[in-house]
């Protein structure tokens, strides 16, 4: 080999090494290319079980993984009655290699076996690049180990019809006063209820989507009340006053017509999307899970097909200085450490844990990516660079499901005039019953 060729080869190897050490977390750097650990001829058969009846975004990742390991098969199965069958499945004759763990399963005794069976993904020997994940969505165990890989994140806020704002010459409001001002202008322009949403006491409902992030921010700023809230101590209800008051103010200001919402939006998912696609709603309160359903329904809405418009997801501007971004985990994956194909299972998770693959999955599912790069789906572009101080991540609070249910009930009662803010605050602990 002559010197010229040697120089070229050595330069190429050096360049590859430099690129190789660059992690996916390096902003602005080139994405790290996946390099298979095992032979391309490796034969394997993996199973993934979860709650989604369809998981096309994951199945696309299978295909992408096959490009590196073509002699295998990964099958996704939706388990019936997941919360009651996953534990049995893990202990059964055909245990899955990868299984879905939902955030609410943390701390629940019933699902302890899920965490006991989980591989430690933060084990350095696995070389899973967990750095590409946003710190807020990582969930570590008490010993600092990480047993679950966040696959999708979600949040609460509103879908904004950008064409209406452009037509009316308005900017998307960034704080509550701007919101009231904008709504006034929109009402003057003929939009009866500038904000709409599902009038339910569920998470995508009006009260939760608008005011819960504010409530979480209150708890984040004063973690001392968290235990009482989780224990449904009535006095802890005071923490609900600020968000409930703002919610009442929203209704009273005429930004949202609750009766209209109740009449025109029958459920908290499909109806929310289809009503938004009618094209005459400037802002629609909802959760990230609702946003994930928009892509498939674009073609199902005749109104949207006839008059398509641009829409984006924004945090609801509930605070005086701006809205609060709930950076929540939607679902996570765990690896069954007793898997018969543990090496290839970990290899698949290593493949999946990158900005590109998780970003592609989120983009296809239209949920929020758990990585630091929001750029793949422009619907969520507004979340990129959101101020840290108004971001509430999973690790910032530990509000249990019981407290969340109380808040949802209080918010629903206040916006529907069933309770005043004072009554709701005073009734904390008994509201969800």
């Amino acid at each position: 080999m002559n010197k010229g060729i040697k120089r070229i080869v050595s330069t190429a190897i050096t360049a590859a090494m430099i690129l190789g050490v660059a992690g996916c977390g390096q902003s602005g750097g080139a994405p790290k290319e996946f390099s298979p650990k095992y032979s391309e001829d490796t034969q394997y058969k993996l199973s993934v079980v979860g709650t989604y009846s369809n998981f096309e975004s994951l199945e696309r990742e299978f295909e992408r993984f096959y490009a590196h390991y073509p002699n295998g098969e990964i099958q996704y199965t939706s388990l019936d009655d997941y919360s009651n069958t996953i534990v049995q499945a893990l202990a059964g004759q055909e245990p899955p290699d990868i299984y879905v763990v939902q955030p609410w399963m943390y701390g629940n005794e019933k699902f302890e076996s899920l965490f006991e069976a989980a591989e430690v993904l933060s084990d350095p020997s696995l070389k899973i690049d967990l750095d590409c994940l946003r710190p807020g969505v990582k969930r570590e165990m008490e010993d600092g180990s990480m047993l679950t890989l966040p696959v999708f994140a979600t949040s609460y806020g509103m879908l904004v019809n950008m064409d209406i704002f452009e037509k009316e010459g308005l900017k998307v409001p960034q704080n509550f006063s701007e919101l009231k001002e904008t709504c006034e202008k929109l009402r003057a322009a003929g939009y009866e209820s500038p904000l709409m949403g599902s009038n339910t006491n569920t998470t995508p409902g009006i009260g939760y989507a608008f005011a819960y992030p504010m409530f979480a921010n209150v708890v984040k700023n004063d973690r001392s009340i968290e235990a009482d809230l989780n224990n449904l101590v009535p006095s802890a209800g005071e923490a609900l006053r600020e968000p409930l008051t703002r919610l009442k103010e929203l209704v009273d200001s005429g930004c949202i017509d609750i009766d209209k919402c109740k009449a025109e939006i029958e459920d908290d998912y499909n109806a929310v999307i289809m009503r938004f696609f009618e094209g005459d709603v400037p802002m629609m309160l909802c959760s990230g899970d609702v946003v994930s359903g928009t892509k498939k329904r674009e073609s199902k809405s005749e109104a949207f097909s006839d008059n398509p418009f641009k829409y984006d997801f924004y945090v609801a501007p509930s605070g005086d200085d701006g809205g609060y971004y709930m950076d929540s985990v939607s679902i996570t994956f765990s690896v069954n450490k007793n898997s018969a194909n543990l090496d290839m299972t970990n290899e698949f998770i290593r493949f999946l844990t990158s900005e590109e693959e998780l970003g592609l999955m989120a983009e296809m599912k239209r949920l929020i990516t758990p990585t630091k790069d929001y750029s793949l789906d422009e619907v969520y572009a507004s979340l990129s660079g959101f101020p840290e101080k108004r971001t509430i991540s999973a690790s910032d609070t530990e509000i249990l499901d019981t407290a969340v249910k109380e808040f949802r009930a209080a918010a629903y009662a206040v916006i529907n005039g069933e309770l005043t803010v004072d009554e709701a605050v005073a009734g904390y602990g008994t509201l969800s019953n």
Partner: protein
Amino acid sequence: MKKRFIIIINILIVGLILFIIVKYANDRATESNHASIASFEKMTITTEQIIANYLEDEQHLCDIWSNYINRSAEAGTPMTVDEAISYIRKAKISPEIQGHLIYIDDGSMKGISTSASTTDPSNFSVNYSHISIFDNFEIDNVADGVVNLTRAYTNPLNGVQSIAFLKKVKVLDRETGVLREGLLFRVVPVSRLEQKLIFLKGEYEKVEISLIDWDGDYMIHGKSLKNSNFFEYFKSYNPMTTQEYNKVVETIRTGIGSMHIRNSKNEDCVIAYTPLTGLDSWFLVAYIPANELTVSRSIDWLLLGIVSAGLMVLLHFNLFILMGFNRKLAVAAEAANQANEAKSYFLSTMSHDIRTPMNAIIGMNEMVLRDSHEEAILTYSESIRAAGNTLLGIINDILDFSKIEAGKMEIIDVDYNFVSLLNDLVNMVQRKADEKGLNFSLEVDKSIPRILHGDEIRIKQVITNILSNAVKYTKEGSVVFSVSGRKCEDKPDTVILHVSVKDTGIGIKKEELDRLFVAFERIEEKRNRNIEGTGLGMAIAQSFLNMMGSKIQVESEYGKGSEFSFDLEQKVVKWEPLGEFDKAFKRFVSERKLYRVQFTAPKARILVVDDMEVNLKVFVNLLSRTKMQIDTADSGDACIALFKRNLYDVIFLDHMMPDKDGIETIREMKACKDTPNSKTPVVCLTANAVSGMREMYINAGFDDYLTKPIDTGRLESMLLMYLPSDLVESPEDSGEEEKSEPAAVKNILAVDDDIDFLRKLREWLSGSYNLVVVKSVEQACEYLEKHETDLILMDDHMPEQNDFDKGKLLRGSFKGMNRDEITSQIKEFIERSES
């Protein structure tokens, strides 16, 4: 053909061959693909049968469990749930398979299992209330004799994806002592079925077999089929309208077959589908990438390249060889051209050299016939005329045949009067028949339309040839000439003439019939050597008829006679029937006269140029009774001198002359400006009658063309055409030929809007009648107010006029008649009115 055309054609042929190769390869691939797909469908059906059998077997095992439990109930000793499960636990062999028995009569969907929960070995209870397997499956539909199969679901006890075969059972509630209705599940892991499918793939390595239910939800599916529902998967990657999608779903649900689909990578794939026998709403879908199943249709470019190169080499080789051949052919063609030119020259010369003395012979003989009153001399002279005409006929036959061979003979269709055509034919043949003492009979269908459209000259020539032969080869007896017509059914504006000539002549042997139409062949040469002829007549006649879409039929009995016939399709211009031709013809024959001059023109002056003095003499003598002033010139130069000096009404100029021939002379005449004859018509008078001569003379500058020997009638007709009408007088003006005309001149008023026709009438009738012509009925009425007339002659196309005296009005299709026919009709009318 030019070289580049040959190259283009060769390239096209090469392209065509390559195209055929590619198409053939594609067709074979398509054929092979169809066979592959059919084979794939067959494999699918076989797999379906195996799966169906397996499912039936599983159901049968479930039925055995249930039957045992139910028989106990029927026997009055019903089993409790625990006893039933205990029995199943003993009965089942495979540890993977579980038996679940749940109560359905209270809707609790709870019961017990043969196996314990994987998380609690002491817990055998099972609960189906949270598993929606009965959303699309009615428990009431669980029946005997069929496979009662659930969708794939998660076994609540071990979390394994399973299917279950169901059967209703009667069990005893131990607590209440009541007989209750339960549902027995034979729970089989889906993986067990999947393992069986591995062995069903047969020859197809990449086939993926899926089982789907009515809604498209998978029981099992291969790794390529995404989504939890096949139809959703199909819709995601195969964009189409809702109608098209519904059609696809319906197709899969209702039949057996295959179709191409796109997979998630947009690759072409084939699915074969078939319903599972014995199961309601379950279908087998076999999936395979299309490239695994079908033969690649890619073209073998190397093979194509080799073939192309080979063909190009062949093309160049052929071109090289062809060029060599072409050089030889060019030499041969040159020689052939020279030979052809020599032949043409020979024909031209022969025609000219024979016709020139013939002109003198026939012309002078005509003078004798006109001027002699001695019977014997007239007889001799008549013989000369007959012989001359025969010789002329032979020359004409040779020229016609030369034209046919050269492909220059054309059929020129014109409107013609069929009566006139018959007149000419009968007139010709009657004379010859009379001379031989033959009885000539004429049978003409009176319904034949009078005015037809066709090539009158060639038809006349054909019939003349046949009739002449009939007369020539018949020593005694008769010749029967019959013509009939029938309408053509397909073409309403045409008539099919059937022409037949039957004789009692020598007949033709059967073996000789084939030679009848061969040129220059004469049948029984020795026997007929005294009969004149070239052997061309029938060949020419057959050629003409072929050109007109017909052919001569011959029936002959040797020694007894022959019949020649043909059918000829002619367009009909006027459907007016020709009527009783025999009578008309007999009258015509009886009135046949000797030569009579058509006109006189004492004031007209014409010039005739010919290098042969005798020809000049003939020309002048033939026209002597026209009383024209005729100057003669014996050379081109003499002609030009006269041309410059005197004004002529018509000039006849010979072609073949020494020193300066006719063409050189006319060029000089056309170039000459110092002449009073710049507008004088110049007619080429030539003995050169070979094909293409007319065009040649017209192109050279002549106005018309007249062949020698001169036909007096044609010459006079031509003069009538070119002479100024004011110079033309009727023959009676000269007072010489009055003797033969009726004593009292009748007044005739001719009414027609066609001036040419009126002019013609004037030419034809002015000599015999006091003819007045008017262009309209109005003018006729004005004339009749002040004058008397014996006859009003009006063509049929003129409108009816009631003001005219019907007794004097003669109507008919005069425009289609010749002079003799019109004269005949007028005479007949006058005779009738006088009687």
